[in-house]
C-alpha cells in the first residue's frame, strides 16, 4: 500500500449507536461559514417514526433545556444551523428520545471556524454586489467577480464551476490586475497555477464599451500576438489561450485558458510586404503580398484583402479578394500579360496601402533565357551599386572569406533584406579588393600610401628612402631573377678520382646532372657539345663560368704542368664522350691556359674537382659559397692555417715565434734558448753521442778488479774481474742503458761494501769452552762462507789476542780442522778453549 494514502471504510449498514456530525466540515476546519449541515443518527433500538431529537449549541440555542424536540420520520436526518462566530472550538449536542423513558445524548467533534479572506490587487475591486465574504457565505460562495478599478469595464469571474480545486479561503488572487484596458495576469501567480490544475479550467472575462468588435491580443512577455481573427474567432494556434469569444452589443466576453497579459486591439493598417515581387515577364506570374496589422502590431488572420491595380494594364489578378493567413499576410497572384508599369493597392475595410506597390511587366525577348540572365545581372548590379553606400571602409580581417566580409552599417531596404547571399554583389567584391589592397600594402587600411624603401642609387646625404615598393621596382630585383654559380666539390667518395697518364678527360656522374640550357639556365655550364650543339646556354663561354678547378688529392692544392700553367678543366657534353649526356653524366675535359691538355706522368694520380653549377639565388642554400671563394682562396687559406696550427701544436711554437725558448737556466744544458730546432737536435745528438758501447780501455784496480774508461774519459764499467764490458747493449734506448748502468753500479757498490767490512773487539768476561758456539758481540751477524776451498771464512776475520785465526772447512765448519767453525750467522765455535780476558777482534765484511 502506498504511504500517501487514507484508509476509508465504506459501509452499507449504519452503526447501532447514535451520532451527530457537522457533515460539511473537516475535523477541525470550518471555512464554509457559520451555517453548517448537521447529520443526526438516532439509536438503532428506537422506532422511527415515534422518536424525536433536539439539538443545542447551534442556532442560538445554548442549552438542552431551551432546545425544542423535533419528531423523526427516519433514523437519520440532516438539518442546517448556524454556529457562533468565535475562534474557539465549538461542539454541537443532540439528544434522542424514543417517546418513552429512553434518552441518548451525543456530541459532535470539535469545530473551529477559520476563514482567511482572499487577497486581490489594489486596483481591482469585487464586482459581485456582495459587501463581505460573510455575505458570500465564506467558502460556501460559488463564485466572485473582480472588476477593473478604472473605466476599463473589465470583469473576471472566479467560479468553482469553472475552476476545479478553487477555494476562496486564503486564496491569493492578486496575480490578476485589471486596468488600462488590459488584463494582466502573472503567469506564476497562485491563481494561474490553479487555472492550470485541470484541462478545461477557465476564467470568464467580459469587457463592455466597445463600438465595434475588437481583436483580443496576447502578450507572451516579449511581443503581442493577436489571438482572434478578423471574424472574432480564436485565431490559428491560440486555442490553448482563449475560448468562447462572443461579441454582442458592445460587450466582448471570452474565457481565459492560460494566464498571461491580454489586451484588445482594432484594425490598424495594411502594408505591402517586402516579399512582394516587382517585375515579371509576360506569360509569367508575380506574387504581391499585403499584411494587415492590428493596433498592437499583430497580424490579423482571415481578413479579406482586396487588391486593385492602376496605371498600365499589365495583367490580371487571379483573385481580387484574398484572405490573410495566420501571420496576417494576404498573397495575390498577378498573371503578367503586357509590358508596362502598374500600381497595385490593397485594402481591407476602409484601410488602404500607402504607398502602393509597383509591378513592371517585361516584354519577352527572342532569347528568353539569355535575356533574363542579363537583365537579372543588371538588376543585381543596380542594387549592388545602390547598396554600396551601406558598406564602410573598415576591413575585418584578411585571408578568409569570412574575415573578408564587409562591415555593414545600416540595412539596404531594397536589396539586402531580400537576399540570403550578399557575397555575389559588387560591393562585396569591392570590399574584397579593398581587403587585398590592405593586405598587399601592409597598411592599416586599403588606401593609405605604403612606406618607401632605401635605394642606394636614388637617395640623399641623409639616406632618404625614395623608392616606392611597386611591382615595377621589384621586377628584376628579386632573388629568383638572378643566377649564381655555386661551387660543388667532389672527391669520389673520399678516395679521389684516379687519372692516368695520357688521359684527356674523364666521364663524370655528378649528383645533379642537369645541363644549363636556353630554357632553364640552371645546371652545369657545358662548354662544348657536338651532338647537341647550340642547345646549351654556356657553349664557348668564358673560363669565369666554365672553369673546373682540379686539386691534387694528396696535397689538397692546385697543380701545374711542366710549363708552370695551372691545370683545370671544362664540362663537355657527356653524349659526345661515350656517356648518356644531359640528365646522366658529363665529360670533364682537361685544360691549361694553352688549351686542351693531356695528362702526363708527372701529374697527380688522384684528383678532386670543384666544379660550377648554376642556380637561381632564391634556391641557394645558406651553406653554399660562391665558387671563386674556394681554390687558393678562403678554403686554401683555411687549410694552410689548419696545417700551421697543427705544426704549432706539434712543435710547441706560436704565432710570430722565431727564437724558441728552451729550458736552459744553467750552462750545463745541451740546448740553449734561441737555438733553432735543427741546431737543438744536432746538439742533442752530439752531446748524447752514439749508442755503440764496449770500446773503452780495460783497467784493474789494486784488488784485481777490472774497470773500463770510456772514450770521454769516464769510468763506464766495472766488472768483477771481468773487464770485458757488455753491461749495456748497443742500440738500447738511453734510459735502458742508464738503467743497466745503475744496476751494474749497484753491484759495484755491493762489492765495495763487502770488501770494507766493520771491526768489532770483544774482551772476554769469561772463558769460552771449545765446541760451544760463542755469539758475536753486539748481536752482529755475518754470512758464513765455505763454498770455495781455501776461502773459508772470507766474509769475517777473527783475531785472538792479535793472532788471525783460520775458519774450519765444510759447511758450518763441520770438519773442525782449524781454529774455529762458522756454525751460525750470529756465532762461531772455537776448537780450543779460550780464556777470560782474551781479546777477540772480529772483522765482518758481510
Amino acid at each position, binding site marked *: 500500500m502506498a504511504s*500517501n494514502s487514507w484508509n*476509508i*471504510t*465504506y459501509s452499507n449498514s*449504519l452503526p447501532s449507536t447514535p451520532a451527530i456530525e457537522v457533515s460539511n466540515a473537516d475535523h477541525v476546519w470550518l471555512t464554509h461559514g457559520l451555517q453548517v449541515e448537521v447529520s443526526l443518527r438516532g439509536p438503532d433500538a428506537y422506532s422511527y417514526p415515534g422518536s424525536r431529537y433536539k439539538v443545542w449549541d447551534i442556532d442560538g440555542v445554548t442549552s438542552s433545556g431551551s432546545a425544542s424536540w423535533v419528531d423523526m420520520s427516519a433514523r437519520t436526518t440532516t438539518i442546517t444551523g448556524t454556529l457562533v462566530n468565535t475562534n474557539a472550538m465549538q461542539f454541537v449536542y443532540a439528544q434522542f428520545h424514543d417517546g418513552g423513558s429512553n434518552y441518548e445524548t451525543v456530541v459532535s467533534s470539535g469545530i473551529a471556524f477559520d476563514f482567511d479572506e482572499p487577497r486581490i490587487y489594489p486596483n481591482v475591486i469585487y464586482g459581485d454586489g456582495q459587501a463581505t465574504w460573510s455575505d458570500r457565505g465564506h467558502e460556501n460562495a460559488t463564485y466572485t467577480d473582480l472588476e477593473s478599478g478604472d473605466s476599463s469595464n473589465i470583469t473576471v469571474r472566479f467560479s468553482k464551476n469553472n475552476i476545479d*480545486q478553487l477555494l476562496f479561503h486564503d486564496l491569493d488572487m492578486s496575480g490578476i490586475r485589471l486596468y488600462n484596458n488590459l488584463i494582466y495576469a502573472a503567469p506564476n501567480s497562485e491563481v494561474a497555477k490553479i487555472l492550470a490544475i485541470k484541462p478545461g479550467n477557465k476564467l470568464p472575462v467580459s469587457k463592455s464599451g466597445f463600438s465595434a468588435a475588437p481583436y483580443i491580443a496576447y502578450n507572451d512577455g516579449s511581443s503581442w500576438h493577436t489571438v482572434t481573427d478578423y471574424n472574432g474567432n480564436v485565431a490559428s494556434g491560440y486555442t490553448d489561450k482563449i475560448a468562447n469569444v462572443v461579441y454582442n452589443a458592445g460587450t466582448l466576453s471570452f474565457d481565459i485558458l492560460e494566464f498571461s497579459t491580454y489586451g484588445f486591439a482594432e484594425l490598424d493598417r495594411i502594408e505591402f510586404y517586402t516579399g512582394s515581387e516587382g517585375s515579371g515577364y509576360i506569360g509569367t506570374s508575380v506574387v504581391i503580398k499585403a499584411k494587415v496589422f492590428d493596433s498592437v502590431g499583430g497580424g490579423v488572420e482571415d481578413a479579406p484583402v482586396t487588391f486593385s491595380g492602376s496605371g498600365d494594364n499589365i495583367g490580371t489578378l487571379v483573385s481580387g479578394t484574398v484572405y490573410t493567413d495566420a501571420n496576417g499576410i494576404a498573397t495575390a497572384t498577378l498573371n503578367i500579360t503586357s509590358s508596362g508599369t502598374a500600381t497595385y493597392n490593397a485594402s481591407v475595410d476602409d484601410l488602404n496601402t500607402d504607398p502602393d506597390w509597383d509591378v513592371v511587366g517585361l516584354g519577352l525577348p527572342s532569347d528568353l533565357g539569355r535575356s533574363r540572365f542579363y537583365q537579372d545581372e543588371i538588376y543585381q548590379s543596380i542594387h549592388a551599386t545602390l547598396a554600396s553606400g551601406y558598406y564602410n571602409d573598415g576591413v575585418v580581417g584578411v585571408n578568409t572569406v569570412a574575415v573578408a566580409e564587409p562591415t555593414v552599417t545600416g540595412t539596404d531596404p531594397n536589396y539586402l533584406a531580400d537576399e540570403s547571399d550578399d557575397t555575389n554583389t559588387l560591393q562585396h567584391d569591392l570590399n574584397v579588393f579593398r581587403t587585398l589592397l590592405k593586405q598587399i600594402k601592409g597598411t592599416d587600411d586599403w588606401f593609405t600610401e605604403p612606406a618607401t624603401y632605401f635605394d642606394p642609387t636614388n637617395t640623399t646625404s641623409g639616406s632618404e628612402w625614395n623608392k616606392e615598393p611597386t611591382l615595377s621596382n621589384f621586377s628584376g630585383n628579386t632573388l629568383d631573377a638572378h643566377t649564381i654559380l655555386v661551387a660543388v666539390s667532389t672527391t669520389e667518395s673520399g678516395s679521389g678520382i684516379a687519372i692516368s697518364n695520357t688521359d684527356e678527360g674523364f666521364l663524370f656522374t655528378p649528383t645533379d646532372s642537369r645541363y644549363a640550357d636556353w630554357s632553364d639556365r640552371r645546371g652545369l655550364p657545358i662548354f662544348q657539345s657536338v651532338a647537341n650543339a647550340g642547345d646549351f646556354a654556356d657553349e664557348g663561354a668564358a673560363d669565369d663560368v666554365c672553369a673546373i678547378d682540379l686539386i691534387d688529392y694528396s696535397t689538397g692544392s692546385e697543380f701545374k704542368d711542366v710549363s708552370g700553367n695551372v691545370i683545370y678543366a671544362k664540362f663537355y657534353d657527356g653524349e659526345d664522350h661515350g656517356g648518356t649526356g644531359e640528365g646522366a653524366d658529363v665529360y670533364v675535359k682537361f685544360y691549361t691556359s694553352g688549351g686542351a691538355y693531356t695528362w702526363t706522368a708527372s701529374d697527380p694520380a688522384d684528383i678532386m674537382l670543384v666544379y660550377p653549377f648554376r642556380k637561381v639565388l632564391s634556391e641557394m642554400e645558406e651553406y653554399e659559397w660562391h665558387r671563386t671563394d674556394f681554390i687558393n682562396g678562403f678554403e686554401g687559406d683555411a687549410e694552410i692555417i689548419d696545417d700551421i696550427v697543427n705544426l704549432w701544436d706539434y712543435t710547441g711554437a706560436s704565432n710570430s715565434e722565431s727564437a724558441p725558448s728552451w729550458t736552459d737556466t744553467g750552462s750545463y744544458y745541451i740546448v740553449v734558448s734561441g737555438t733553432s730546432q735543427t741546431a737543438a737536435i744536432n746538439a742533442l745528438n752530439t752531446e748524447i753521442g752514439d749508442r755503440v758501447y764496449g770500446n773503452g780501455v780495460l783497467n784493474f784496480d789494486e784488488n784485481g778488479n777490472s774497470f773500463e774508461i770510456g772514450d770521454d774519459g769516464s769510468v763506464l764499467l766495472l766488472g768483477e774481474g771481468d773487464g770485458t764490458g757488455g753491461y749495456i747493449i748497443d742500440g738500447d734506448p738511453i734510459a735502458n742503458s742508464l738503467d743497466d748502468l745503475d744496476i751494474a753500479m749497484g753491484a759495484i757498490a755491493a762489492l765495495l761494501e763487502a770488501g770494507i767490512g766493520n771491526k768489532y773487539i770483544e774482551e772476554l768476561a769469561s772463558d769460552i769452552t771449545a765446541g760451544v758456539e760463542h755469539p758475536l758481540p753486539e748481536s752482529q751477524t755475518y754470512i758464513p762462507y765455505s763454498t770455495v776451498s781455501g776461502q773459508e771464512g772470507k766474509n769475517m776475520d777473527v783475531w785472538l789476542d792479535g793472532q788471525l785465526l783460520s775458519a774450519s772447512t765444510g759447511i758450518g765448519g763441520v770438519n773442525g780442522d782449524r781454529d774455529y767453525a762458522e756454525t751460525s750467522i750470529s756465532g762461531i765455535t772455537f776448537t780450543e778453549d779460550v780464556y777470560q780476558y782474551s781479546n777477540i777482534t772480529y772483522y765482518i765484511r758481510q
Partner: protein
Amino acid sequence: MADYTPPDGDDVNFSFTGSYSAPDGDDVNFYFGLVATISMFDASRDTVYSGSADTTILRWRSDIEGDYRVRIGGTDQTDGYLFDSGWVPAEYIMTHELTVADFVAAGLSPGAHSINVYVLSSDDIWSS
C-alpha cells in the same frame, strides 16, 4: 532517469536499509531524482455510510508541482480506480470529496479501502 546534481554547498545523504552485494566485477550506480513529498491531512471521516453521512473530505498537498493521480485501491500510479487526476501546484492544498457513490462507481465492496495520491516530478518519477 535524469541525472541529479545537488546544488552547490548541499550534501547528499544516503540511507540504506538492508544490504546488497553486487556481483563480482559489477558496479553499483546510484541514480538521483526529484521525488515529490506529499503531505496528507486527516480525512474528515474515516467511514462513510450508504444513506447517511456519505461524504468525507480529503486534503493533501505536494512540495513540488506536477501531474497527480488519486486512485482508490491499487498498488501504484497505474493501478486502482482513478478517482481524480490533473496538475497540482507546489504547496497548494488539494481538496476532494469522496462519497459512497465513488466506491460504488469503482465497483468496490463495502469495507476498508486505501485512497492513494501520486505526483509526478519533473524528473519523471512518480511518488510512491
